[in-house]
Structure formats: C-alpha cells, structure tokens
C-alpha cells in the first residue's frame, strides 16, 4: 500500500509564487492564480495551495483554524478538544465549488477561535505558544483530523490537484489580502495527500518551497529537541519550524535567521568585515544543526510581510520584481509577467540573500 506523508518521506519538485502590497492594499486571490498557472509544467497535479494574509479582517483578532477531517466522527472528537482549549466564535464549512479535477475531498472546516485565558495562564506560556502546542497536539494525537492553518487574519488553502484547480475549488477569487503565496507541487511518490500539499503553516507562518533539501534529518532531529514534531516529514514543515524557533522563540531577526539556514561559506565569511565575520561565525556555530543544504527556494509568509530566500548555492531559480508598491516573487519570470506585464524592475537575488518585504505597519493596523 502506498504511504502518505508522515509515514514516509516524499521528495518533490515545485513552483512557487508570491505577491505583496507594501502599502497593505487588498489583492484579490485571482491575481496569484494567474501567476502560478503559468508554471503548470513545474507541478504534476498532486498538490497545490495558497496562503493569503489579511483575508479575514472581520475576525482579525481570532486565530483562524482550517481543518481537514476524514469523517464526522473525527470532527466531533476534534471539536470537543478545541472547545476545551478555545472559545470558538465561529465554525463553518470552508466554501468550495465542484471541480472535476479535485476528488476525494475531506471535510474542510474553518474555526475562528480565541484561547481560553484560564488555560493559557495555567500553562504559564504566551498565547502563541499555547496555540502552537494545541495544534501540534491535535495533529499528532487525533486520528483523522489535521489543522493545516492556524494564524490570525490569514488562511491556507490547499488540496491535491494543480494549483489553478485548487484555487477554483476554494473560490479563491472571493478572498482579498495584502499578500499571497502559492505553490504547485511535483511529488515523486504517492497519489498525494491533502495535508501534504503546500503551503505548510503554523500560527501566522506559512512556507512554500521548491527543491529537496539534503540536510532534512539533521534539521528535523535538531528542531525536535524543542518540542516540534515533524509529522509530515516534508521540507516545508521543518523549514517552518526552523523559522518559528529562530524568530519567535530565539528572538532573531529574519535576516539573522536567513544566515542560519543559508549560511555563507567560510571562504565568503572570511572576506567580510571583522564584526560581521564574528557574527556569522557565531551564527553558524551556534545553530549548526539548522543549516539547510541542498536546493531550495522558499517564500515565508508572516503577518505583515514575506521573506524570499534561495539556498546558498542557488540551486533553484527565483525572481523578484517591483511595480509601484507591489512586490512579486516567483520561480520564473513568466509567472510574474502573468501577474503584472509592465514591471518597474526585476532581478534574481543571490544564493542565501534574503529578500524581506514588509507592509507599512500603520496601514496594516488601520486598514486590515
């Protein structure tokens, strides 16, 4: 019998795309679909997905949980567990439309929740850690339930299919956000599992990724020391946890975290100014188990921004373009031109060079 993610590690190739408005303007879901559709050849119909930020302005103070259920029994069990930990202000089916290419859909539910303050206080941890642990626990212990999105004012939508089919299925054009990421998957095994599609999300982090990393088990075994559980055995999952650990738990900047996962070569470090040499050496030494080798290009989504990063050898292609206040990122230039034909500038970042784009904070707080 073929095994799904979590039972076996499945390498995959892929396409990624992203768009963000630096002024927090709303961008309709159809925009990102136009981009990812262009790279049809890079995926094989076994996984597609999107993450939108700023898409739930009416519920922006609540964690939006998107959940796949195998059946209603699993839903009842999981909902009971959720009620024990959260106040659920809204529970609903995520609206979908029939698409002949999207088959075997699980039950797909969405909950807007707030952690019960008494439970958070009892555990003596902050609210985000509480949510992260709750998600990790449900995903590892509840049969037939899988929380695939858990951030505030953000949501992940994914399925087995080509990304444009997945977008149609989820009615992505009905959503608008200040940033979007997209993924088309080319797994090398299995009929694909919905949970294994990208983006992978935890809290407001989402990761889309192209490539297969060779450092996977080193990274996994290191990060699992800190309470993370790599259920899916996918690169995106471990990359998401790495950024969560470095940024949220260690308090590193995104730029510093990028120097951990895509560290410059020692010979390159030796040519930097002394202070920078010291810092980069410290970073490589301190978090040596989190260096990622092998090909990757990723877009990391978070509240208020995106980070795009290539591996240090730049074994995957990635292009970044600007038009007015909007930044576009994709595996191929053609995907960007499909979203915006007339660009102000376009470039390929160097291997290991993080591209960090953030939304003007004021706009974010007022308008979203």
């Amino acid at each position, binding site marked *: 019998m073929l095994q799904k993610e979590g039972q076996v590690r499945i390498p995959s190739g892929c396409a990624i795309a992203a768009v963000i408005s630096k002024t927090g303007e709303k961008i309709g879901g159809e925009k990102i679909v136009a981009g990812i559709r262009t790279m049809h050849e890079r995926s094989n119909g076994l996984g597609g997905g999107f993450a939108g930020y700023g898409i739930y302005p009416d519920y922006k103070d609540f964690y939006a949980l998107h959940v796949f259920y195998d059946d209603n029994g699993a839903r009842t069990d999981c909902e009971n567990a959720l009620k024990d930990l959260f106040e659920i202000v809204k529970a609903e089916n995520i609206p979908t439309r029939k698409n002949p290419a999207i088959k075997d859909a699980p039950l797909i539910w969405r909950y807007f929740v707030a952690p019960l303050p008494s439970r958070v206080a009892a555990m003596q941890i902050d609210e985000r850690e509480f949510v992260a642990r709750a998600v990790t626990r449900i995903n590892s212990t509840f049969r037939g339930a899988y929380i695939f999105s858990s951030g505030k004012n953000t949501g992940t939508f994914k399925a087995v299919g080509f990304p444009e089919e997945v977008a149609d299925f989820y009615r992505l054009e009905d959503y608008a956000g200040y940033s979007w990421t997209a993924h088309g998957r080319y797994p090398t095994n299995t009929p694909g599992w919905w949970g294994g599609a990208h983006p992978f999300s935890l809290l407001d982090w989402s990761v889309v990724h192209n490539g297969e990393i060779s450092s996977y088990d080193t990274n996994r075994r290191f990060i699992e020391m800190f309470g993370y559980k790599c259920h899916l055995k996918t690169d995106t999952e471990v990359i998401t946890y790495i950024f969560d650990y470095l940024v949220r738990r260690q308090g590193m900047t995104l730029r510093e975290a990028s120097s951990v996962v895509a560290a410059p070569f020692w010979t390159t470090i030796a040519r930097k100014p002394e202070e920078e040499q010291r810092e980069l050496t410290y970073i490589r030494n301190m978090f040596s188990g989190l260096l990622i080798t092998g090909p990757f290009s990723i877009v990391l989504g978070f509240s208020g921004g995106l980070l795009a990063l290539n591996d240090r050898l730049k074994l995957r292609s990635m292009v970044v373009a600007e038009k007015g206040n909007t930044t576009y990122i994709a595996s191929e230039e*053609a995907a960007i*031109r499909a979203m915006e034909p007339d660009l102000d500038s376009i470039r390929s970042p160097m291997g290991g060079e993080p591209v960090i784009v953030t939304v003007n904070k004021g706009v974010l707080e007022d308008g979203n």
Partner: protein
Amino acid sequence: MKIDASLYTHRALNDLLRSRTDETSVENCLGLRFIGSGLSHGTVLIDGVPGNALGAYLDGAKIIVNGNAQDAVGDTMNKGEIIIRGNVGDAAGYAMRGGEIYVEKNAGYRVGIHMKAYKNNRPALIIGGRAGSFLGEYQAGGFIIVLGLNDDGMPIVGNFPCTGMHGGKMFLRSDCRDVFFPEQVTARPAGAEDMAEIKPYLEKFCDAFHYNPSFIENAPFTVVTPDTQNPYKQMYVAN
C-alpha cells in the same frame, strides 16, 4: 510570419518552426518552454518571456529575444546564435559546444558551465552586464566574456568563478582586484593578442545591442586561463 505563442503548446510551436525557412516572429510569449529546441535553420524573433531551455541543442538557427529569458538558455547548443535583449537566468550555455550567445544585461548563476570546444567549434558567451556565482564552472573550452556595462556598483561576477576550469578562456572587463579565483587558474591583464581574439565578438555585441565600442578601451580586461587540462590527477591513488 507572426505567431501568437499563447495559442501554441511547445510541441506545436516547434513543429511549426522546423517547417519554416525564413524569419518567424513569436509574440505574446509567457513562459513557453523549449522554443527552438535543436533547430537547425531560420530565424526566430521572440517578444515576451520565453520559458526554460530556450534554444537547447540549437544546431544552426538564430534566436532573438526582445526581453529577458529564463533558465538554461542554449543548453548543449551546437551551432547558431542566440541574442537576448535583457537578462538570462541560471545555467545559460550549459555544456555548449559551438555557436554564440549574446546577453545584453545580466546573467544568473552557473553561466557557461561546462562550455567546451571541439574541432572547429569554439562556443562564445558574451554577457553585457554582470554574472552570478560559479561563472564558467568546469569550463573546458570556448570564450566567456563579461563586460560589466551596468553601473549599479555590484561586482562583475559573484563568488567562485572558474571552479574546475580546465580549458578555454574567460574575459572579464575589470581589473578583478576583488575577484577570488581558484588555485588552478591564472588571471592576468589581457594583452593585445587576447583582445584580438575576442574582437569579433565584441563588435557583434555592439552591433546587436547598439553599443558604442568605446567601452573596450575605457576599462581593463582580465583574462583567465586554466593551468592544466588535467587538474585533478593528483587527487587519486590507484587501489
């Protein structure tokens, strides 16, 4: 003849190009891959962004792109000419054995990787802007010329140029003071003889992109050549 690329699959387009003997204009191109694969005759003009593997195994045809091209342009190209009025992505000219590629602006990583020469074939890759890391990795023949004509303050070439180079010549329009070359190559200021060798390519570059050839005189060129054809012999012990 004008063609709207959005109405074609790559297979149908290449079938059409193979049947044509004169100029074909491909418009509205957005990521269509494999254009001109193995094409031996005719001229293809492309508007838009052609997809990966443009002109792979090209065998005599001429391709002109009005805009940027993506990865693996001229992969294993044997003969012909590719002119890009913009940037190219990674691994352009991979293993090219003959023909010429002209890029007006910048090139990505691993450009000219494993370019080689054979008999009368001497491939040439001319980049007007700058090149990314691993330029000319394993270069075994032919010419790689980087002109650094853009004025954005970035280095003319990224890290690790010429690693594993064991043939051919690389020219960089720079004194290369900040460029670190591997041990098995020699970088020296280009002399008159060296410049004479690449003159035809520079002229063609100016012609293709309407540049005034004065840039040839106003900056030093560095030429890089490998010290040996067999740099790795001493790495092994018979067992």
